[in-house]
């Protein structure tokens, strides 16, 4: 069989997953695959970047080495950037002037960090000024690591998931960290105002300073005006800083799609099969726009990758992508947040349950429509997260009293409830009661409760209970298992 040529533009987490799904479906037998990436050294898991920032080796988060691509007969090109697709001649054009034929092409160009227009952010060479960083790639992390020194000041611009994660790592490295957030509260796309406020208090407990509702108006430099040495806020305050980290969100990377004449809105527009309107051209991941939505977290990207693999290999022709349910979990030591679905009720009939624990800085909120979970946020007390997110994902019916879900303890063992004698279902509590009532030997305990009269495998345990709880004046049992 002559293989078709499949070109994939981009080598991020989405592509990584797509390749796994293709390999799983024997897609490498149907396609000769070429991947165009920008970074050397294979693909890595971006959500673990904080490990590299925290000091681990870059290799520790690499999911696919160049050797992996070789092993699966996949060509990886990272020497020349893709400029555009020629959709008439069906080829990928790169900046070195080469053109490579494709039968099917997938755009997985991802997203890029937003750099807000701030005075003094760029150096004379047009690049980010020395000491200013975005938090997006391994290379960014290595540069930040080199700069970050204990007791120096750092300003993180952006109080979303990524900004808080970077702030925490820098604080752990001993820096004085301030998070500046334009919005009135932290993580405002995942939490309502109260939730954001509770989170800010928790963050503060970890020695991180938070300034919300503030805009950074400009950066100022050292005497030579090269390196950054602080920021101006819109309220007139200045914050000295040896490093500034930009974590202001991302936007889809669509240059290649635009240059290729593909329909682009916020992202590259795709349908339920992740196809663009040009035959043979697909797009997915953070660069793609499906049903008016773009996604900036990894779970939806992976769901798209699975559907796309089904579509490309023809294994399941009915596979369709119908949108994703949004879920975010922030878990850095001591700060615990979960958020899913809607932040606020939308219909008058939507039910809202809020549990506010001011003193514990804990906040939980559920939004319920027609007995199903529409949204939930948990700050400071996330014990119910696992149960809630599964109910949310599956659309399971909520209990009539939604508080039941929040109250239910994670199943742990209550020693008193432990069945000691499994033959006769006698619990530890019942045995202690019997001991208190005078059963002071294993035999007496067996007579009183029937425990130990079945298979006898609990007799050692009975003896121990007697030893522990029978009055000391009573004779001790003979058999004690050690």
């Amino acid at each position, binding site marked *: 069989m002559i293989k078709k040529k499949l070109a994939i533009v981009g080598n991020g987490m989405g592509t990584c*997953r797509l390749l*796994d799904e293709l390999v*799983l479906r024997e897609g490498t037998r149907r396609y000769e695959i070429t991947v165009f990436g920008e970074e050397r050294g294979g693909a890595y*898991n971006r*959500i*673990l970047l904080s*490990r590299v920032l925290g000091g681990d080796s870059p290799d520790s*988060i*690499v*999911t*696919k*080495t160049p050797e*992996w691509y070789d092993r699966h007969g996949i060509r990886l090109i990272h020497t020349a950037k893709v400029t555009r697709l020629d959709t008439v001649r069906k080829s990928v054009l790169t900046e070195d002037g080469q053109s490579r034929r494709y039968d099917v092409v997938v755009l997985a160009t991802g997203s890029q960090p937003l750099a807000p227009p701030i005075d003094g952010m760029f150096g004379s060479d047009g690049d980010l000024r020395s000491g200013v960083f975005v938090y997006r790639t391994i290379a960014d992390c290595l540069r930040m690591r080199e700069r970050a020194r204990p007791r120096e000041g750092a300003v993180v611009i952006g109080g979303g998931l990524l900004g808080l994660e970077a702030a925490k790592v820098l604080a752990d490295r001993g820096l004085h960290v301030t998070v500046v957030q334009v919005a009135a509260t932290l993580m405002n796309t995942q939490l309502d105002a109260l939730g954001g406020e509770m989170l800010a208090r928790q963050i503060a407990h970890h020695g991180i300073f938070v300034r919300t509702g503030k805009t950074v108006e400009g950066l100022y430099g050292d005497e030579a005006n090269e390196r950054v040495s602080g920021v101006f806020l819109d309220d007139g305050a200045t914050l000295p800083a040896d490093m500034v980290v930009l974590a202001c969100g991302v936007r889809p990377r669509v240059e290649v799609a635009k240059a290729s004449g593909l329909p682009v809105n916020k992202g590259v527009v795709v349908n339920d099969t992740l196809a663009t309107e040009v035959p043979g051209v697909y797009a997915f991941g953070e660069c793609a726009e499906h049903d008016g939505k773009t996604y900036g977290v990894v*779970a939806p990207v992976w769901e798209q990758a699975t559907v796309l693999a089904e579509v490309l290999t023809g294994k399941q022709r009915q596979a369709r992508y119908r949108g994703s349910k949004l*879920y975010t*979990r922030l*878990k850095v030591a001591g700060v615990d947040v979960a958020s899913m679905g809607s932040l606020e009720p939308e219909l008058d009939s939507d039910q809202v349950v809020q549990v506010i624990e001011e003193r514990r800085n804990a906040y939980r909120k559920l939004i319920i429509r027609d007995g199903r979970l529409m949204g939930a946020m948990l700050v400071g007390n*996330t*014990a119910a*997260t*696992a*149960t809630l*997110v*599964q109910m949310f*994902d*599956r*659309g*399971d*019916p909520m*209990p*009539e009293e939604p508080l*039941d879900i929040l109250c239910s303890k*994670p*199943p*742990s*063992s209550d020693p008193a*409830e*432990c*069945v000691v004698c*499994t*033959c006769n279902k006698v619990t530890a509590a019942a045995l202690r009661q019997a001991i208190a009532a005078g059963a002071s030997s294993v035999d007496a305990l067996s007579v009183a409760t029937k425990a130990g009269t*079945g*298979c*006898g*495998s*609990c007799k*050692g*345990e009975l003896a*121990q209970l007697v030893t522990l709880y029978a009055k000391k004046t009573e004779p001790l049992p003979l058999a004690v*298992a*050690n």
Partner: protein
Amino acid sequence: MNPLQRLRAVTPEATKTHCPYCAFQCGMEMTVRDRKGHDIEVTADEAFPVNRGQMCIKGLTSAALLEHPARIRTPMLREQDGRLAPVTWETALDFVAERLRSLRATYGPASVGAFGSGALTNEKAYLLGKFVRVVLRSPNVDYNGRYCMSSAAAGQNRAFGIDRGLPFPVSDIAKTGTLMLWGSNCAETMPPITQWIFEQKSAGGHLIVVDPRRTDTARIASLHLQLTPGTDLALANGLLHLAIEQKLIDEDYVARRTEGFDDLRRSVLTSDPARIERLTGVPIEQQVRAVRLLAESESSMILSGRGPEQQSKGSDTVLALINLMLALGKVGKPASGYGCLTGQGNGQGGREHGQKADQLPGYRLIEDPDDRRAIAAVWGIEPDELPGKGKSAYELLDSCGPQGGIRGLLVFGSNVVVSSPHASNVERRIRDLELLVVCDSFQNETTEAAHVILPVAQWAEEEGTMTNLEGRVILRQRVRPPPPGCKTDLAILCELAHRLGVSRGFQFESAQDVFDELRAATAGGRADYSGITYEKIRLEQGVFWPCPSAGHPGTPRLFADTFAHPGGRARFHAVPYRPAEEVPDTEYPLYFTTGRYKEHYNSGAQTRLVQALVDVRPEPRVQIHPRLAGKLGVAEGEGLVVQSRRGAVCFLAQISTDIRADTLFAPFHWGGRMAANLLTIPALDPVSGMPEFKVCAVRARAAGPAHQNATIA
């Protein structure tokens, strides 16, 4: 002297043997109290070092099976009118031989086969495999052990190069710092094992239980991870991800004793705790606690049961558990590592001696030319005469009938109609057979379709070795002779062989003779029994294989210095998570999972005949969370119709907070309309052939008072 005292004075000595049920194989003493051999007392053997004088209610009541009124005492042949008629052995065996011969002549040798059992002794398993390959010349022999430990076997073989259920004696359990029981409810399924667990806990050890239900075993745990059915693989990968993140990996061990860690490490990078929490329902805090206990205890072990194994990704899940323990540097250290709590009495030995479609005696592989040569030499045939690999258990049963091509089947000690997934399909298939021969002591759901039933001796009526869950080869001794009219499986196989024209290699005076040939056949194989004798077993309370020579002491503990792969290293395997074959959706919104009651064993073919057990557990009940029960409007003891894409069963409800609100549970010990396996899905593990008994999607509704225990077809 009064008569009673006189009776005591002449009391014969007790015979030491082992329980007929599970892989724990409790040592038991049986004493015949009367001259006829009808009144038999059973006690637990105080001296046997595995159960140390304890035994569960199943073992204690097992003698009831010997003189049971339902016992078959003569061969039965199905007449034209469909009724079974008693016939002589001569007639029955002539008939079977003639039918086998004619089926082979018409359809070829692969059209006949055999289905064995983990209840058979090593000698029987060995001879059955030999019979099918040498006499029938068919590749098609497999056994119900496929439903038991095949995933653990496949996983251990790939990781360690050898498969022995436990790589250490059960007594090591008492010495481990952290014990993680993964999908095993051993407090109910092998109760006497709990003495070792209580001992471990008393010494300050930690117990972690992973199970979708809060079982009796989970109740004694200090940490219970109540995961979503079918997500064990995700959780295991997630724990490894955490171990790496928290710097708990034993890098020195990984470098010295393993290979393949780099690929594995990269593959679990995507199993971050938040994703795993979402998939499994196990909170991040609990994941962290579990992995820290395993890593930071001086010694720790994971023992798996059928929970993670009976899935269509069971062998990958076992590999993930092994990956974790290897990465933590635990495997081969004292009281540490991974083990499988094998289920059936001889689930271990049964898979070592050639009644498995892909294996030859001594754990040799039927597709390995060296292994074929070695066995062919023992059997006195040319290697080319040995057939190749046959179909795995469910595939074998599913191939019965004109379409699949299997026309004649011999079944030994297995109630396949109850124990197989998608039971109604299996029943249909075996009804399409032109010849079904069942060797058993009792009629059961499978004999209903049999053309011939051959009554066999029971465990206390014959001799033979078993290999328990530890890999300890033990001896069952004869307590009394079989009743007139019953023959041993060994005698049946030999007599059929003679009738089919093969006498050479099927002339044995005793089980011990068969064992001697088995010893020779295993010499040099992975499961080497050549140094084990009945005498040595008697003297040493069993012998652990491998035992390659007469002077060898046996091998209680494996892996201290080396693994069985060439080069001596254990192998890591990257095993990415994949969902179960069938997950809940809007049509079938609930998980369904199956398991056991303490009072019953497997398909219940034996235990449902014991009144003492039936009194305690007369019927299966479906376990349901009160929240779900409230929604469905079903109260305790009322009928609940549970329906999957394959069938429906009306169970009585048992309402309990011990089960997840998204999951229903029912035991599989009953047949007919109460068979849990009418619901289960026949999705198979691609490596082990294990069916997915532990997860499928169902819907449920209250039956209403009129439909108690009635099947809704």
